[in-house]
């Protein structure tokens, strides 16, 4: 049975989608693992909150500085706040959240599931007629998605505050103009798409981590590789999905003032 080149990649993709589908299906199957969900939620939140805040402050600052110097040259300084809000809320925040969920939460999930898989815990669970996907994976994926949505709000706020701080204190901009221009370019659907993106990115991070964790190559080295792969695959998928979502969003919702 000689495999055609690329079959392996296609098969893995298929398995990934199949896992995503079973996660969605088993989410609605009783009994729901509330306790596991709360534990995982707490765990993922605790490892991502601080790093994502620390990342979002300089990120907001960079955007403000960059946009600020550009708008200054064009004489449109009053739009700095608007541009910064738009960039942070619509693009930067969901991506920061997803990268941290994948990097900090997903890698831990993948390592945990991977270690359990090679110790035959998953098979032991299956022979006890308990579905590991329902028991372990569903709560983790839901926790990753949920934390992503909530964290996205936090990162947006912290990012904008960071931008405001640097605009006012480093570029000596007018505080009032930064705040006043918020609504000149940004609109409410920007926040919606931001949260939708965070939800989808969190889901992807959770599913990819679980998928790599459930299918590691044998041995501890296999688990190490799986963790590495899960982070890389999630990053690649995130940027691609972000591109698609942004393109669709810009088609559906016309930019303000256009």
């Amino acid at each position, binding site marked *: 049975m000689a495999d055609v080149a690329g079959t392996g990649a296609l098969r893995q993709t298929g398995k990934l989608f199949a896992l995503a589908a079973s996660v969605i299906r088993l989410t609605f199957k009783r009994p729901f693992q509330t306790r596991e969900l709360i534990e995982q939620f707490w765990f993922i939140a605790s490892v991502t909150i601080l790093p994502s805040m620390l990342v979002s402050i300089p990120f907001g600052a960079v955007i403000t500085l960059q946009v600020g110097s550009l708008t200054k040259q064009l004489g449109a300084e009053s739009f700095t706040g608007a541009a910064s809000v738009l960039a942070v809320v619509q693009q930067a925040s969901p991506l920061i959240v997803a990268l941290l969920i994948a990097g900090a939460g997903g890698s831990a999930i993948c390592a945990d599931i991977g270690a359990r898989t090679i*110790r*035959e*815990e998953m*098979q*032991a669970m299956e*022979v*006890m*007629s308990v*579905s590991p996907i329902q028991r372990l994976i569903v709560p983790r994926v839901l926790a990753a998605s949920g934390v992503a949505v909530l964290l996205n709000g936090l990162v947006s706020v912290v990012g904008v505050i960071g931008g405001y701080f640097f605009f006012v204190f480093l570029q000596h901009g007018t505080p009032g103009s930064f705040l006043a221009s918020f609504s000149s370019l940004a609109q409410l659907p920007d926040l919606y798409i931001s949260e939708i993106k965070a939800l989808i990115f969190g889901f992807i991070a959770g599913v990819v981590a679980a998928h790599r964790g459930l299918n590691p190559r044998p041995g501890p080295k296999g688990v190490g590789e799986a963790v590495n792969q899960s982070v890389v695959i999630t990053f690649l998928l995130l940027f691609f999905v972000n591109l698609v979502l942004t393109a669709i969003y810009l088609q559906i919702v016309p930019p303000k003032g256009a």
Partner: protein
Amino acid sequence: MGIEVVVDGLTKSFGSHKVWSDVSLTLPAGEVSVMLGPSGTGKTVFLKSLVGLVRPDRGRVVVDGIDTVSCSERQLYQARKLFGVMFQDGALFGSLNLYDNIAFPLREHTKLTEAEIRRVVLEKMDMVGLAGEGHKYPGEISGGMRKRAGLARALVLDPQIILCDEPDSGLDPVRTAYLSQLLIDLNAKIDATMLIVTHDIQIARTVPDNIGMLFRGNLVMFGPREVLLTSDHPVITQFVNGRRIGPIGMSEEKDDATLALERIEAGQPVGLPALVPQLVPSAGMPERQAVHRRTERVMGLLHTLPETAQHAITAAMTHHAHHRRGGQ
């Protein structure tokens, strides 16, 4: 009483590597069977394919009317409730202590109260000699204890069929002997069908009612213990004696030239060690129901067995009958 497991024409390969092909056998209800085989002959894969953890390429495994090879996932989950599986390293959940590990199936599948769960768990822990160890975590205990805890967890739902994957690996001969006795006592107590996968010849000689042997991707034989233990099949004599001389090589099978050379070196062929009597349940345990059923079954097919095996069986039965009369 346990349930019969019928395996028919089972074949499994990983890619181009054929693990075994066309394995057909029946695990008789309530009896203890052992599957022997050199390392790497797919004994564990065989055990896992019975419970649908490994999907064979072809064949059937029929348990209680359900074919675990081709049935739906829902049916498979139903069928698995009949099984208790003891994995090679126990496969305990590292995040739970022994008590919670053993209570896990009860909490998932029954509506028992914590008090009732506690009663069942403590009883099973006592049964496998782990009383008072419930607070320890799998990482803190020895391999032997992990195995016994794995066995206790496999037992809590009162399975009809118990599968043990290498219960002896990593255990010293004394502990192996204790575990062998434990398995026999267990069989006497709950009358479940048992399959033990091992390469430990001591277990094979003392524990089972039936023995099978896998070699070179085939089932060499499967039948009453006397048949294999008196066989002059070269693979079996080599394995049972643990010798280098014979068809089993270090990595795979040997070629003809090496075999011819060995035949010159070997001198006299070596027979099998004398048949030792099978273990009986410890004092205070009920009698094994399987013994009577097996006697009837084996008597029915006696004429089809090799002559040496026939002698061994009749000798064992006379011994058994004599023993029972003497005991009364």
